[in-house]
């Protein structure tokens, strides 16, 4: 019974006020700071032993073996054109569990976990055509920092990401 409830809860998550007090994992891409719902995060690990997939978009770095399961790795820095994609022992991969699928995203660095009350979250400004704000739940304010709160589920299931076959229904 619990699974559908979680699913509906995240569906409702698009509505800003549903985030009464939510925890977000914050990470940096270039100079920007982003936040994703902590419940979507499975673990954080380093970047190594990646197997390239031919003819995949540039931001899909390939697949790795995560304790026996095959997990695709997406470099958010390439996807959002932020920061310089360097790969060394400090490169961080956030392993996400999004609608039953496991995937990893490469980011510049993971900062901390922040609890945001509803009043700390502002709706995203409307950039109309210049910027697709569909994946942004809102902008969080913590002291002087601005967090871009991402709807990671929506982003990852977007067909432009090419992560999921058209045929599979979710």
């Amino acid at each position, binding site marked *: 019974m619990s699974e559908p409830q979680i699913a*509906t809860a995240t569906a*409702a998550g698009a509505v800003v006020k549903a985030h009464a007090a939510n925890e977000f994992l914050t990470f940096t891409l270039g100079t920007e700071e982003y936040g994703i719902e902590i419940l979507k995060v499975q673990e954080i690990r380093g970047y190594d032993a990646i197997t390239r997939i031919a003819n995949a978009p540039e931001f899909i770095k390939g697949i790795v073996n995560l304790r026996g399961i095959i997990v695709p790795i997406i470099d958010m820095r390439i996807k959002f054109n932020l920061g310089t994609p360097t790969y060394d022992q400090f490169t961080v991969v956030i392993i996400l569990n999004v609608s039953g699928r496991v995937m990893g995203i490469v980011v510049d660095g993971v900062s901390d976990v922040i609890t945001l009350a509803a009043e700390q979250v502002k709706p995203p400004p409307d950039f109309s055509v210049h910027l697709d704000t569909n994946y942004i739940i809102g902008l969080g304010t913590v002291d002087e920092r601005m967090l871009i709160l991402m709807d990671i589920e929506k982003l990852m299931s977007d067909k432009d990401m090419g992560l999921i076959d058209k045929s599979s229904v979710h």
Partner: protein
Amino acid sequence: MSNGNSQGGGGIDMSQFFQVFFDECAEHLGNMEGLLLAIDPATASADDLNAIFRAAHSMKGGAGTFGFTDMTDVTHVLETLLDRVRKNEIPLTSEMVDVFLQAGDVVKAQLAGHRAGEDGLSDTTPASEICVRLQQLIDGGAAAPAAAAQAASAASAASAAATVATVATAQSYRIAFKTAEPAESLEKVFANLRVIGELEIVVSPKPRKRGKTAQQWELRIAAFASAQKLLEQFDFVKTEGDIGISAVVASPAGAANPAGVADSTAAATPAAPQLKLVPAPAVEAADDGFGFFDDAVGVPSIESKAEDGFGFFVDIVPPVADAPVQSPGRRSTDQPSVVSGIAGRRDNDKVVVAPQVDTLINLVGELVITQAMLAQNGATLDPVIYEKLLNGMAQLDRNTRDLQETVMSIRMMPISFVFSRFPRVVRDLASKLAKQVELKTEGEGTELDKGLIEKLSDPLTHLVRNSLDHGIESPAVREAAGKPAKGTITLRAFHRGGNIMVEVIDDGAGLNREKLLAKARERGMAAPDTMSDQEVFQLIFEAGFSTAEKITDVSGRGVGMDVVRRNIRDMGGHVEISSNPGGGTRISIRLPLTLAILDGMSVAVGEEVFIIPLTYITESLQPLPEHIKSIAGHGRVVQVRGDYLPVVSLHEVFNAKPNVTEFHKGIMVILESEGTKAALFVDGLLGQHQVVIKSLESNYRRVQGVSGATIMGDGKVALILDVAGLVNTPKAVFAEAA
């Protein structure tokens, strides 16, 4: 189960005894059916008749003890008639055998109903019909033994009419589910369902925005598909408790009988999915549904489920299956949720423990990988200093291998699990088509992976039906051609190399090359006369391709063979056909031994490693420069012993940076898939491994040219090549160029 308990329980826990009865009864039914199929009315031996009688009698006794009166009623009449036949008061006729078989089906359905915990079949029409038929046979025999045959044939005419009525009726299901999805997003599911059958939305909630609360839906669908198939459409309903599906017994009149809606509270019980398969009255319907080939997605027929469940299989469950479950009594008390949860198919214990077995196999796969990793690292250690450690590692290696072998063998089942349903299929179909056919099976003991066994059933049924309908000629035609009037269909299974071969062989008319070519041209396909026989025969697997002059209810619509090929490809297998006009057709299915592990050759391209399934590799060689030719500028071929094979460069397909670009400095791996050969150019061969197949699609998507992934000894992922796709790459390149 709970209904059954309270019905016969009387306070004591009767469920363990029920389980014993169900198992025994299924065994008796299987025995009875086997004997009936083998019997020849003219020369029936007293022993056989006695054995059939005993089976019916035992079932009646058991059913009476547990208070299953519906079963007692049918078995009683059945037993009465059998008794008179075995005492030679009434001569046995082939019509009687038919009726006995039908009666067996009815009892089977009743048994299924009781197993699923119903008080009895909601629709008793088939049961009462069969009782009437049996009674007619008894009366006819008693009144005037000479007129028995006449009475029987009249009766069979009546039943034929009844059958026709049922044929038009698909099985009805009532589906109730809860979901928070809005109506618009369900529309897609409904559209899919409409393809499967006639859909009626009984209860739909008021339209509103996607909210938190789940809303109740209720559908009714008349389809030729199995409940399992329908359930697949509801994947979005995450928890099984939120969906209930129950078979509504279609009355012969055609309309879904409202009184037949079984257990309307099913969906409200979150405990277990209500997956009730009530086969008997629907057997004809499902069977014919199969024949129409309307179920283009290769739906497992209800008949197959029913027979898998309650007919033959119980008595041939291999001993391993019993190991985790010590006694039927213990099983039913300890695992009530399992038993009721998969009530429709808890027939063989392996199916019940399947999830644990799969987990076990995955874990052992992990262990093998870890062990390989350790071995790799340990190889660099100084054997003098680390002697003890290395000894331990060697032992670990041995133990891991033994464990893996043993665990893999749990998954193995003899192919007789599939074959055993065909005597009945062939018998029914042959009499329907007025053909004389003998079915031979060979190599029933051949073992293959449980997953493959389950998936093999549908394609094989298609192939056997096709052989019977299109292959075997009518007796008159056969005799005119100088062949025995009775045709033969042979099912054969055997090991070849690392594969299992399953063959369907008939001695019928064979495939007509000219007709196939003409048909292909008619459909606007490129079909030059120079096509090889193998390629021409493969045409029958194209969607919508049928050379049958008229569409029968058995086959001829051209849907089906493409499904067969797709199903077999999905299993990692291949179909090949050989045929000679007038002499018959042989359809060979080549399957891997198991779904979980394959033998692969690892090859290198630059820094990357790929795995080629060993079964596709015919040889590997380093070509001489003069053996490489090019055709029209693009498209290279390599000469291998007189043949010119197209060259596929793996580094071009995968956009990789190779270390070697000159063909004569690298390696050509000669691949063969479905009769097509190609040479795959790689940097070099690395070695041969057993690899554990991992799905790419569970977290990612399908990748062109790749059939899966595996984890190598160093923990890195390597892609497994889709050979069938790669071999056809040159064709695609030429098509683009042209």
